[in-house]
């Protein structure tokens, strides 16, 4: 098999100022894209994130503390999300490990019944580099979700956005139409794969409670300030070209009692603006597909 393409071979450098502006329908200027992440942390493995250093500095297995930290999100935190989005009438994108359909059926069913978009997010949480059969895992994850919701997911996000160089080819082969792993633009783009074009949507690793709260250790209220600043700037720029403002949240972080009010404040703030669409990934993809026929053709 030939070497898989590196990113530059999949997508040439392109300056945003050189592209014709994208236009949203009607008077809309900006899409606010909410992505909720529901995961499965296997107690037999190292936990995906740690909050509390192990007493002697050496992490030991099992790591019950951080298993519990994450489990709180699935027992309690996610219900704060469900309530909030029901009240707001927003149907977010759910970036979910397929295994939640098995381990947290109650949660997965709620998301399905509330009309959330299911986006593929591996079978369970861990870097995709460690998968021995990546293609098999991708297909199995897509199949489980298709069986559970009755619809094959259109989108995919790697766990922690991880990819190997061949991942885009494997995703396209499994029927994925868009990915969130390429956080390199404000607009959707088309990249090449060996199985035809794949669309990237502007997901975010900055407006994301993992870097802001767990990696950078900001105060709880900073997520609100950061997203407000992000939104203000993109909203200003959306006067001349369509913008997408993504927000990625996790129930074990933003679903905590001391953080949830700042998440609510984000939606209060955003919804005071005219021309904001709360679309999910599939809606953004459908809109982009309609306007980007040329780019899609070029990547055939």
């Amino acid at each position: 098999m030939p070497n898989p393409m590196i990113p530059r071979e999949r997508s040439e450098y392109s300056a945003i100022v050189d592209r014709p502006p994208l236009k949203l329908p009607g008077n809309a200027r900006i899409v606010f894209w909410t992505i909720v992440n529901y995961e499965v942390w296997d107690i037999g493995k190292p936990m995906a994130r740690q909050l509390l250093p192990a007493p002697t500095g050496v992490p030991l297995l099992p790591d019950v503390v951080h298993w519990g930290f994450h489990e709180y999100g699935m027992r309690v935190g996610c219900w704060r999300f469900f309530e909030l989005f029901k009240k707001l009438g927003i149907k977010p994108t759910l970036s979910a490990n397929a295994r939640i359909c098995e381990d947290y059926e109650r949660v997965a069913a709620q998301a399905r019944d509330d009309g959330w978009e299911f986006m593929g997010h591996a079978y369970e949480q861990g870097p995709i580099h460690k998968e021995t059969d990546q293609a098999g895992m991708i297909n199995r994850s897509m199949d489980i979700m298709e069986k559970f919701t009755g619809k094959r997911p259109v989108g995919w996000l790697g766990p922690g956005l991880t990819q190997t160089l061949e991942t885009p080819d494997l995703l396209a082969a499994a029927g994925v139409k868009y990915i969130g792993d390429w956080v390199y633009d404000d607009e959707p783009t088309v990249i090449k794969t060996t199985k035809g074009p794949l669309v990237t949507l502007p997901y975010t690793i900055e407006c994301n409670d993992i870097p802001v709260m767990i990696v950078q250790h900001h105060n709880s209220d900073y997520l609100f300030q950061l997203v407000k600043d992000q939104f203000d700037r993109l909203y200003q720029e959306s006067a001349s070209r369509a913008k997408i403002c993504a927000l990625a949240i996790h129930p074990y972080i933003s679903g905590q009692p001391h953080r949830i009010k700042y998440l609510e404040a984000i939606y209060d703030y955003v919804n005071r603006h005219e021309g904001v669409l709360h679309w999910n990934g599939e809606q953004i993809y459908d809109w982009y597909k309609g306007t980007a026929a040329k780019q899609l053709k070029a990547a055939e």
Partner: protein
Amino acid sequence: MNFPKPPVGMLPGDRIAYSPIVNRKPLKLPNRARMVVWTITNVEEWDPTQTMPRTVLTPPAGGSPMPDIPNWCWHEYGNRVGFWRLLQVYDDFKIPGVMNINGAAVGAFPELVQACVERNWEFVGHGFTQRNMQKVENERDDIRKSAQVLEKLTGKRPRGWLGPGLTETWETPDILAEEGYDYVADWVLDDQPVWLKTRGKPIVNIPYTQECNDVAMMLIQHHKAKEFYDRAMDQFEQVHKDAKDSARVMAISVHPYIMGAPHRAKYFRKIFEKIAKKKDVLFWNGSQILDWYLKTGPKAPH
């Protein structure tokens, strides 16, 4: 104290003797200006087949998986989108641009480089690749190639040099002087330009900054975006006060993937909204600072 000498090159103390800033003959800027602010934009090309120089998101359960697509993309965003926000600030406030760019990267983002050439930016040699100068196979070759590729692109030889990550070997200033560079910015040891001795003719060092620098502030120290503005203003006010009798230089150093992010861009802009109102502050590039120092500063040491 006597430290053991390196086999080639010189110890810092042999290039520049200790000198307290208060004891020097005052430096005077034209038009009664008190200080100069120079702003440096760092454009980098990250090799997708190597570990990323910096990351914003760590992978689940740690480690450094390769390839690292999310962090590669995070950096690429700066060149596709973020840079153009910074450029708008420079245009609006008529700030002369200074670009640190690796020689190997000038071909990677042609539209970006072209926009800077059109605006007559100063291009500073910044290594052929973003690799520690101590790990570069042939340092002289690297320094020479960096100048050649910039000259070919802009029609002008770069006069200044900043090592990737400010790294130097014991010999770097000697090689820079021999290869025709007129100033270096790696020596962050003063508020004024200074002379460094080399084995040939001396070279000027211009005050750069590791503190008013978005890599240190946002990625290492994890400050809120607003802290970049707050620190720049605190730095500015103190340097401005200190410069009452003798001119000083302040540097601001940014990367498009950091300060060019939507949620940070306004704090960058606010710095210039505030400083540009001051009548006694000059916005210069490195060459302008150098030429002024050569004309009015102390003579080169023997």
